[in-house]
Structure formats: C-alpha cells, structure tokens
C-alpha cells in the first residue's frame, strides 16, 4: 500500500490541475439503429434484457461520466460483460462511442479527424492488452520499437529507445527472441514495453494480467506499481480482479451492466459500499488492509493525546493493529505533530468485523476541523451529503468533481453507506 500513500500526495497536488481524460455521459450501444437509444429517455431506462428484447441492441456503456486525474491510477473494475473493456476502447476510439463526450487535456476526442486521432494514439495514450497483441514474426526488440516505427522514427534511434525500455521492464538479454518463445509474463512485459516506448501521456491497461498465473500476476502488479512510482504516469487500468483493483488503484470505478455503480478510493468502496451489489462484491476483502486509521479513529481523550505509539493518518488499520498489540495502548494518529485522534482495540475490531459502519466517514469529514463535535453526532446518523460537501481530502475525492461523477453522487445520496450493525451480523 506504499503506492497509495505516495500517490495520494500526487493526487492532492494534481487536483488543482485539469483532468487528463474527462468523460461525460458516454454511451456505447451495439446493435441496429443504436443511435436512438441514448437519446430516448424511455429506452435508456430499460434494463439490459428489456432493451435487447425491445430493440435488439446491447448497451455496453450507459451514461458513464468520470475524470481521470493527472498522475493517478484510475481503475475500472467489473465482472465480464460489465462494459469495462468497451469503455477503455472508447477512450481512444478503438470502439466508436454512440454518444456523449470524451476529452483529453480539454481537447474533444470525438471531434478529432483521422490524423489528429492517430496523433492521439501515437503519442498520448498507449494501450496494453489482455492477450498481448504482439506481432509473432518480429523479435522482442522490433515489437517494442513498433510504435516508434509507425511514427516514422529512424531505425537506429527507435532501436536504441526500445533497448532502453526493454531493460526497464526487465527483459535484458531477450531482445532477439520471438514472442512465441517467451512465457506469458514475459510477453506481457513486451506489451508493456511497447506501450512505454512511445512515451505516452496515459497508459491504458485492458485486463493486462488476467491471462497470467497468480504468482506472475503479482510480479507484474508490482512492476506496474514500481513504474508508476518512478514515472508518475497517468494510468487507466481495467480489471475484473478486486484485489488487483485495490492494490493498484488510487480511485476505482466499479461497473455493472454498463453503469458506474460506485466511484471512490479503495477505502471508500470497501468502507462504504454504495449498494448491495458493491457490498456483496467487497464482502471478503480483508478490510484491515484497505481501511486507514483516519477512518477508524475517534477523538482523543485528554490523557491519550500524550502517550502511545504514533502513526500517520494514511496508515492501514492492520499496521495500527500491530502497534496496538505490541504496546497495549491506543495508537495516536499524528499529522505534522498534531494529534488527530486515536484508535483503540474496540475501534480496530470494529473495522475488522465490518461493524464500524460509516462512522469513519462521518468523522473524517470533520477531521480537518479537528472536530470534537463529530464524535457527538453519533456514528449511526452521519449526514452523508453534508459530509460529502464538507470533505476535502479522502471522501471528497469521490464526489469532489461534482455532477460529472454519477455513480459517486448516487452513493453519497443513498442511505446505503449507513450500515445498521445488525444487518451485517445477520
């Protein structure tokens, strides 16, 4: 989770800047006369099965809006058929969207002519594919140099650049092999290197590690984390694997049937699921490894402020558990020498058991005001919308971008995050 901490810092200072990708009310409908579906309020409201029965169309992406901020890892997660792969292909118009808007750095993608679109694909967004998409008749080096070759870069120059990138992804010595002679993990490193070689502004990953063995998948995830830490490149990452999403994502958009049902940090998704679907999805997640102490803490008593181990607000609950178990005292959450609150046995157990409800969120909303009164407002009756408007840091990242984030709005408005303790136990 170390990336999370570094990335969080980047996110905070990037928040001032404009988003890299901005997607507004995007629709992709497959089928005959697909154009009419998004515009027709009645058709747009139908479920997938009804829509197919009525029109023969399939809506792969329905009214999706989100921003991808500079330098973040934006994960789109969903089961197969949820439209996530279609969504990422719409970003560079590998699949032409039916309606809506996409802009990159404020420039309208859908309005681009062929030449501009090629420029976008060549220099600004490169993609890594699930099944690698390598050219079997070329060596590793020539595969990596391929993106540069079609840009018209000279042979010597592109080979030098390719060799550099091949080394960066750990494939030294395999430059002259053919893709067929490599393992799956190595092939995907080639795919990654090919995308990196063109030095794109954004890297798009379409389930890149789904075809790999679990151990190699973990290696590759670490490779991505490392690359992101070193280069800070913006990444859009598609996956159906929740643990992968939680490991890599600064923010996660969870898709179902073409819609984003929730958009937020891993902590928000796990801590306050927007609806029953998301809750079911994240049920088996080890919460202590995702939730931070910022969410678990309560205001400190007078005597607690002075003693006990200190911990940063971004630390995970499992780190706090370790500290508490070692010392026997409640842990102080310290930020720049100020004590924000404490976590004790009861709080930590509450997180692990999933009985903390939205207490953390209600509290974290007032965190910067150092709010002693937040604790008084009670954990069960936190006003979700009030907290969302007040928050600036963690919970704000979900709804802070305003109306563009449909799923997150729904999540914030719905009473769902307020989980009655009894329901979880039963």
């Amino acid at each position, binding site marked *: 989770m170390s990336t999370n901490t570094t990335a969080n810092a980047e996110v905070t200072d990037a928040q001032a800047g404009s988003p890299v990708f901005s997607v507004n009310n995007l629709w992709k409908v497959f089928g005959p006369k697909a154009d009419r579906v998004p515009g027709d309020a009645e058709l747009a409201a139908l479920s997938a099965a009804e829509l197919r029965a009525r029109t023969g169309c399939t809506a792969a992406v329905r009214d999706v809006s989100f921003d991808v901020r500079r330098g973040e890892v934006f994960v789109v997660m969903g089961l197969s058929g949820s439209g996530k792969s279609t969504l990422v*292909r719409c970003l560079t118009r*590998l699949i032409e969207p039916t309606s809506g808007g996409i802009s990159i750095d404020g420039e309208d993608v859908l309005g681009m002519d062929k030449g501009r679109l090629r420029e976008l694909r060549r220099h600004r967004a490169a993609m890594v594919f699930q*099944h690698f*998409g390598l050219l079997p008749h070329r060596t590793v080096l020539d595969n990596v140099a391929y993106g540069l070759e*079609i840009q018209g870069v000279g042979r010597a120059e592109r080979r030098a650049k390719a060799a550099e990138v091949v080394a960066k992804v750990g494939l030294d010595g395999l430059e002259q092999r053919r893709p067929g*002679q490599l393992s799956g993990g190595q092939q995907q490193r080639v795919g990654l290197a090919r995308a990196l070689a063109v030095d794109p502004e954004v890297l798009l990953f379409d389930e890149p590690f789904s075809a790999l063995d679990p151990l190699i998948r973990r290696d590759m995830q670490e490779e991505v984390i490392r690359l992101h830490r070193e280069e800070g490149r913006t990444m859009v990452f598609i996956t159906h694997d929740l643990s992968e999403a939680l490991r890599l994502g600064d923010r996660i958009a969870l898709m179902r049937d073409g819609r984003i049902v929730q958009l937020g940090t891993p902590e928000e998704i796990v801590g306050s699921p927007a609806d029953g679907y998301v809750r079911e999805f994240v049920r088996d997640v080890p919460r202590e490894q995702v939730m931070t102490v910022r969410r678990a803490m309560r205001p400190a008593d007078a005597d607690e402020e002075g003693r006990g181990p200190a911990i940063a607000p971004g630390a995970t609950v499992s780190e706090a558990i370790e500290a508490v178990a070692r010392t026997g005292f409640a842990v102080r959450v310290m930020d720049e020498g100020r004590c924000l609150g404490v976590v004790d046995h009861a709080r930590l157990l509450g997180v692990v058991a999933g009985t903390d409800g939205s207490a953390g969120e209600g509290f974290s909303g007032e965190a910067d005001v150092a709010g002693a009164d937040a604790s008084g407002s009670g954990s069960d009756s936190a006003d979700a919308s009030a907290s969302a408007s007040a928050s600036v840091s963690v919970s704000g990242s979900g709804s802070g971008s305003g109306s563009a984030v449909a799923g997150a709005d729904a999540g914030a408005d719905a009473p769902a995050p307020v989980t009655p303790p009894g329901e979880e136990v039963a």
Partner: protein
Amino acid sequence: MAAASTATAPAADTPRFGALLRNRVLGKLLLLAVVAAVLVPIVNARWASGSWPHALTVDLTGPLGKTSDWIIDNRDSHPLFLYFFGHISNAVVVSVRGVYLVLLAAGWAGVTAAAGLIAWRVAGLKLAASAVVAILVCGWFGMWVPTMQTLALMIVAVLASVVLGMLLGLAAGLSDRTYRALRPVLDTMQVFPAYAYLLPVVLVFGIGVPAAVLATVVYAAPPMARLTALGLRGADGGVMEAVASLGATARQRLLTARLPLARKQLLLGLNQTIMMALSMAVIASVIGAGGLGDRVYQALASVDVGAALAAGIPIVLLAVILDRTTAAAGERLGAAEPDGRRLHGPYGWGVAAVLTVVVALVARLAGRIDWPDTWTVNIADPVNSAVDWMTDHLYSGVPYIGGTADWAGHFTTWVLDPLRDGLQWLPWWSVLLIVAALAWLIGTWRTAVTAVLAMAAIGVLGVWKPSLDTLSQVLAAVAVTLVVGFAVGIAAARSGRLERLLRPVLDVFQTMPQFVYLIPVVALFGVGRAPAVAAAVVYALPAVIRITTQGLREVDGAAMESARSMGATSGQQLRQVQLPLARPALLLAVNQGVVLVLAVVIIGGLVGGGALGYEVVFGLAQGDLATGLVGGAAIVCLGLMLDRVTQPTERRAKKGA
C-alpha cells in the same frame, strides 16, 4: 421446370411438415414422394420416359460452331483481339520464350546449381541435395529440353497466378462484400475437373502456348486467392487492435501486421498454386503446352508406356521437389531462426545468386551448355520390354487368379456395363428425383436445387447418355475408393506403425499430377474404361485415407477415454464412438473422393474411357470446338452436381449455430 418445382416446393413447406413428422429423413422422403406422385404422371404424359426427351434439349452445337468460326475468322482483324487478347497472347508468348531462353543460357549446370541453392536457402541442405539429384535425373532420362519447356511455362504461369490470386485475395480479404461475392465462385472452381478449363481458352486463343498458360493460370489462381483472403481475414483480432491502438495507418496495418500475420497461409497458397499449375501444365499438353506433358500425351496415344514413363518420372520428381521445398518454407516460418546463422537473410540469397552465375559461366566457358548426349540413359526400351513381358504373362491366363486384362474385362462386364446400362435405362425424371433426394438428405434444400438444376442442364445440353456413362464410371470408382479408403484409413488410425509406413507413400501420391496416373494403369490394364476407373481410384485413395485417418484420430480423447473406462471393446469404441464422432470427416472424405475421381475419370477419355472426356478430346483433336465445349459444360455440370450431392458443410454450419 420439373426439377425446380420438386425442390422449391418442399422448401416452403418444410416447417409444417417438419412439425407433423418427427423423423426428418422420413419427412423429406415422404415430401419428395408426394411431389413426385403429382409431377411424374404429368411429365410422363407430356414427354416419354427413358432417356432425356429430345423436346427438352437445346442444340448449342450450331451457335457454338458459329461463334468458334467467327472467332477464327476475326482473330487477326477484330479490335477485341487486336487490342486485348492479342496483347495478352503476345505477352505470354514473349515471357515464356524469355524464361526459356534464360534457362537455356544458364545451361544445365546453371539450372541445377540454381535449383539446389534456392532449395537450400528456402528449405535446408537435405532438400537442396534432393533437388539437385532430381534435376540431374531429368537430364539423365534425356528429358532436359522438355523439362526446361515445362519449367518455363510453369514459372510464367505460377507468377501470373500468384499475382492474380494475391490481388483477388487482397480484395476479398479486405472487403466483406467482395469476399461474399468471390467465395462461392472460388469454392466452385476448385470442384471442376481441369479439363473443363481447356476449351474456353482454346476458343479464344486457339491451340498453343498462350492458351496453355492461361488455362493454367485460371486453374491455379483460385487457391492462392482463397488462401490469401482466408489468411488476411484470419489475422488475430487482438494484434490488429493493438496495432491500431498505436496509431498505425491503414497501409501500415496491412503491410506491417495483416500481411505478415498471413504469411503461413500465403505460403500454403503458393504451394497449392504451384502444384495445381504443374498438374495443369501437364494436362495442357492437350492444347499445345509442349514439354514433359506433351511427351506423356504422345506416348500414351501410341500406347508406348516406356516413353510415357521416361517423361512421367521427371514430372513426379519436379512435383515432389516443388512441393517439399515450398512446404518446408512454410514450416520454417513457425520455427525460430537459429541464432547466429552466418548466411542469414539477403546475404545468403546474394551468395546463392553469385554461385549460380559462377557455375553457369564456368559451364559456358567449358562449352557444356547443353545436356551431354552421352550422359543419358534410355529407359523406354527396357520398360517396354518389361511391359511386353507383362502383356504376355500377366494379362491373362495366369492360373487361378486370372490376368490383369481379365480383371479389367470382368470389371467392365460385371460392374461398369450393368451400372451404365442401369443408369441409362432409368427414366430421366427418376434420375433427377434420386439426385434431389440424395442431395437433400445429405445437404440442404439449396444444395438439392443446385444439384438438380445441374443435372437437368446436362439433359438440356443433349449429352445425357455420355454423361451417365461418365457417371457410372465415377460411381464405380467412388465405391471402390471408399471401401478401400475407409478400410485402410481405419486400420491406419488404429495402428501407429501402419500410419508411419503409409505417410511417405501418401505424401508422394498426393503430389503427383493427375495425368501421370494414367501411365501405370495403361501398362497394367491396357486401354478402356476399367483403366480409367483404376487411375481414378489410385488418385483419390490417398486423400480419402488421409482424411479418414485424421478424422478418426482427432476424435475427442475424453469421449474415447470414457468409453474405455466403461469397458468397451475396441470394436465397440470404433462403432459407437469413433465413427459417429468422425462423421463430418467421413462425409468430407466422400466429397473429396467424388471430386478427385471425377477429375481423373474425365482425363481417362485419353486412354479409352470414352464418354464426356472423350468428347472434349475429340473436339480438340478435330477442331470441332462446339462438341468439345458442350462436353466441357456437361463436365462442369456433372462436377457441380456431384459436389452438391455430397456436400454436408452447410448443414453442419447450421447445427453449430
């Protein structure tokens, strides 16, 4: 027309009747019977039964003869010939002549060196050695000049076929509409016997090298077009998407991804095109191709088996070498390039070219351009005396088993004659009904309609009787082929040792041009219909055996394992698991068997097979193009009918969907 209504009426009614009758086969038959019961009395009342009624034929001989005469009269004056066909004809003559002169200038040493070095670059040392030996044997048999003539014709025809095929394939591979339009045409063209292509080109170009080359191109280009289109369309979607995602232009996508991804299919297409071209270049000796095929043709005409063999062996050697070399090139693509090979890429080709030129120059300086006469061996005479001995001792009167000529005679008397007479005795409408029933039971109503229309067209053309004669030979040959082929195929599928033994034999047999098969059967059985059938059986057997073996071997291992685990005997496994599961492969074997048999039965017209093949040969020999063209059209119709009757593909596709 009666035929059309028989077949279209059921199509409309299928759902209703299908609901009434559970059993699909019975339902179809019953429906046909009902339609027949209505139509046959009407038809019978109007036209007589028996052979195809004269009232329903259209005599095309007159108009065709006039067309042919007009073309002959205007060949030198009409602008269409002066400015279009004339140029094509001249271009062909000039290029064949040019290639031939280059080959002669290189001398035997240069050509041998070139063959060896090309085989080495493409396929490795072993094949290079075989290529050199094969070329030298051609010279040793005294066939150097005819070999070079055939080679020159082949080179021009293959180049033209590849260019034409690639262009068509590119169009079909990149545009769905072209593909949909072109695919049925190409599929159907592969069904027609080579003979059918000869007459139309002769009509336009007259007998000679241009006609031979163009017939070869028309015959050999379809596989290239087909495989190019298939290869381009089969490009891995993931790779193409990845390439597009990197911002490649349409041109870049084609040149750097789609074409290279299709390299295997392109090489397979090249291989098939070369083999088809060789096969046709030999057959085209009938229309003036010259070269090795002509030697075989002339020798067969005078039943000189020795001379035919002397020209036939070089043909087989050429075929085997060309096939192995191009096939090896395809296989090499998949394998990795060995690291650090010194003679790599263009450098290696440069070395090969330089060596060839050096060898050719050395031979020229040494005054050894033409193949030395003293280095030849005459195999015709010993072969002929062997054949004479066979004629004397094996033809007939061998105690207990009888002689080969006796067998041929018995086969003709007891199988071919009754079959032919039976078919010709059948009322014409019943033949149509049988065709409709078979085609509909095996395929769909569409294939049934095509088959019936094709059969009716034969009647309309006025060649009903000879066509049924050909049909009887085809049926007899197919029956023998299938019995032997399935038996051997099943045995090979069950015994790995037998399969290993058979494989090289089948490989050689499958690469030999059709024409060559006539030589040994003439030696064994003399001339007549029986040898034609025998040649057809030998030609079709390898394909049937191979498809059967493969089909049985590819049966799902899990199904076999579960049958074994329940204690099925090997006979039970074969009957209850392997054969039912391999049904598609077996049906394909039948289809292939029929198509291949027809091709050779037609050529059998050259060795006394008579019937349609003879009409074509007769037309060519007598300059009576009208007769020949009608015969050619009937061959096309017969091929179409036989293919459609045995074509189960469409229904399989429907079941899968």
